[in-house]
């Protein structure tokens, strides 16, 4: 009998269980403190102030209305796009289109808004065409139009990717039967597609609703006035300009009640489906087309691609001259480089923090069978969806207001909240690979004594290095693009990139704003590219894949 090697480092179960529990508790306490301080400041909760004020009633109604419309329109566009992409798995540009769709999760809102203004604003290309073809059309980007357009720009691709992922989980055998029976149209939808999409729709709708409900930068830039103010913006105004803390607290509580209530309803449905797009794409099964389907599908994808690409193109075309103008008296880089440094200073710790926290939370969830000990880290992972960052920020702002003496403290807080904001997304990215080992493999690992550090190093690390790099990229990107929390805690004199961009847009420095937008976009692309390269497994471990044609029988 071979002698038993010494126990693996960090193999005590506590190493997996306790950090996640402590972190979960700390974050729950942090949120509770934030909310508590808000309620104390409000001097009790008098929600009647909202119902007695016509302005505040209007704010609540508009927030809900625009979010509902955004959900409906985003899903209405996403559904045919997802169905088309699920059906056509091999066409030139499909992969590029999917990558652009993924951008919606990380593209800083303020950057996208500058691109949208470049296409649909008063001087935009799209508006120019509209003016030529339909003079006197009355199109105005600012107000509900612009808000909905921007929300669809962000959320339709996200929804389409999630729906596509669900459609791709349909077992090939079921698709083959549908193909053999020649199912199409309503029957294909009812018997094959709807059962696959139904489980994901409540969570997806809630996610899009929450993102639109708590939208900040879009409302600030495209809202166009008090008529189009949302709760998030009203909280910011109450805090930053009117110093009306009780009103901010009451509004934050209303926001919390609506978001919390919504997610409570969703969790009651036992949400299991992933809400983040998966990069794995399965093989295709040919289905019977209806007349002119190829033509209509091509047209739909073309319009959708243009809808996504034109604002990005506008950012590039308008921003490039500003970035290349190195010889002017006031170079754009004088502001850009310090802002980049500040953004990275906040985003890097936020990104690393969100990945580390996600790992601790997932390890703790996996290790315990106790329902309460499972609930603490699980709740923490979803907390930012229930308690929007601006609400948390408001509470902490009120709690720490007397002590927040310098920028550094404010930035630490911003990094912390940004890190928390990214948690639900990073957890979704890491959960699959971490839970991907089947029970037999785990038993083999147990029997071989691959525990603690050894299990992490030998079993999980090869599986997780790529998702961790992706999670880190998402964490950094979300923080780099943050405009909500930084607007609350940051200083206008020391802006981060999104704040600088907002200031430039607000002072009509169109060219400089375009340059800043492009710079931020390039920075994010660079970060994603770099982390994607770092996360790639060594060449000899990359699995060789058979060409798709070899996996599928030919359709005759």
């Amino acid at each position, binding site marked *: *009998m*071979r002698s*038993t*090697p010494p126990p*693996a480092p960090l193999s005590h179960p506590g190493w997996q269980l306790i950090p996640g529990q402590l972190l979960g508790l700390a974050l729950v306490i942090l949120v509770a403190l934030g909310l508590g301080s808000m309620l104390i400041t409000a001097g009790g909760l008098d929600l009647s102030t909202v119902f007695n004020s016509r302005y505040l009633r209007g704010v609540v109604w508009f927030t809900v209305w625009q979010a509902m419309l955004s959900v409906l329109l985003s899903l209405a566009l996403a559904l045919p796009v997802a169905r088309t992409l699920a059906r056509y798995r091999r066409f030139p540009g499909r992969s590029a289109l999917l990558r652009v769709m993924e951008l919606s999760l990380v593209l800083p809102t303020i950057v996208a808004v500058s691109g949208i203004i470049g296409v649909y604003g008063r001087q935009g290309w799209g508006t120019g065409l509209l003016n030529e073809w339909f003079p006197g059309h009355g199109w105005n980007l600012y107000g509900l139009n612009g808000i909905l357009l921007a929300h669809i720009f962000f959320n339709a691709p996200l929804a389409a990717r999630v729906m596509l992922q669900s459609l791709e989980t349909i077992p090939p055998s079921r698709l083959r039967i549908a193909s053999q029976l020649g199912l199409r149209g309503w029957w294909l939808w009812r018997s094959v597609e709807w059962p696959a999409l139904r489980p994901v729709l409540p969570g997806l709708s809630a996610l899009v609703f929450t993102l639109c409900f708590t939208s900040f930068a879009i409302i600030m830039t495209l809202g166009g006035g008090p008529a189009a103010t949302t709760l998030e913006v009203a909280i910011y105004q109450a805090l930053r300009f009117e110093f009306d803390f009780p009103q901010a607290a009451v509004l934050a509580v209303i926001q919390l009640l609506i978001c919390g209530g919504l997610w409570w309803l969703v969790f009651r449905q036992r949400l299991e489906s992933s809400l983040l797009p998966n990069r794995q794409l399965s093989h295709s099964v040919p289905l019977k087309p209806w007349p002119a389907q190829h033509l209509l599908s091509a047209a739909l994808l073309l319009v959708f691609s243009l809808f996504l690409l034109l604002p990005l193109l506008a950012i590039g075309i308008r921003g490039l001259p500003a970035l290349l103008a190195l010889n002017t008296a006031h170079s754009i880089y004088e502001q850009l480089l310090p802002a980049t440094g500040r953004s990275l200073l906040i985003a890097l710790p936020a990104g690393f923090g969100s990945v580390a926290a996600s790992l601790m939370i997932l390890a703790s969830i996996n290790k315990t069978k106790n329902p309460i000990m499972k609930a603490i880290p699980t709740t923490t992972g979803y907390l930012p969806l229930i308690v929007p960052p601006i609400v948390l920020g408001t509470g902490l702002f009120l709690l720490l207001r007397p002590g927040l003496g310098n920028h550094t403290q404010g930035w630490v807080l911003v990094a912390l909240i940004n890190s928390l904001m990214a948690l639900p997304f990073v957890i979704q990215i890491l959960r699959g690979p971490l839970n991907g080992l*089947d029970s*037999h*493999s785990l*038993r*083999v*690992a*147990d*029997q*071989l*004594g*691959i*525990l603690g*550090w*050894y299990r992490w*190093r*030998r*079993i999980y690390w*090869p*599986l997780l290095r790529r998702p961790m790099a992706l999670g880190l990229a998402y964490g950094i990107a979300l923080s780099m693009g943050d405009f909500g929390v930084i607007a609350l805690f940051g200083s206008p004199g020391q802006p981060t990139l999104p704040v600088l961009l907002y200031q430039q847009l607000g002072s009509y420095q169109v060219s400089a704003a375009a340059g800043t937008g492009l710079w931020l976009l390039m920075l994010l692309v660079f970060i994603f590219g770099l982390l994607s390269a770092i996360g790639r497994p060594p060449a*000899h*471990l990359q*699995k*060789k894949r058979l060409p798709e044609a070899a996996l599928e029988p030919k359709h005759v």
Partner: protein
Amino acid sequence: MFDVKHLCFRYPGQTDGWEYHFSLAPGHCVAIHGASGSGKTTLLNLIAGFLQPDSGTIHWEGKAIEQLEPWNRPVTTVFQEHNLFEHLDVATNIGLGLHPGLKLTPEQTKEIQQGLERTGLAAFGTRMPGDLSGGQRQRVALVRAILRRQPLLLLDEPLTGLDTEAKASLRSMLLEEKSRGVALILASHDEDDRKLLADHYWNL
């Protein structure tokens, strides 16, 4: 000598359970067969430590092992499938059986290569499990189990679904282990496996 005494187990919510009572000498093989759900895999899981018995004892050389964690028990299991970590190459999969942190001595590295050569897989050390046939994967799993040099091998349908050639190769490896004094507990539906390898039969 392995002694299993009045080892009882019942799954939660189940009215009937199992009780196992037997001894097994080194170099002997017992084949257990029975319908699906008859308790073959449950017995192997109890001995391996993947399940905790309600009562009873398991002794090896007079020492009680039923309270030990799976990694401290003198047994190695070979399942019907999923024995290998799909994202690790063949040599790493075997190496983890020798040291869970893959801190291998030059002798151990040589042992791995020799094990692969003995089973006709000399050129497969850097291949991923996904690139191997079912028979080759089981041979890799068995090489790892053999190199762990534990006195008891638990075999949960290890030859099911393999072609004749692969089965013959694995059977000869198992016979060789038996002749070295390793005790085998084989759960199998295959009459030929039982006839060739087993000294005792149990019908559960």
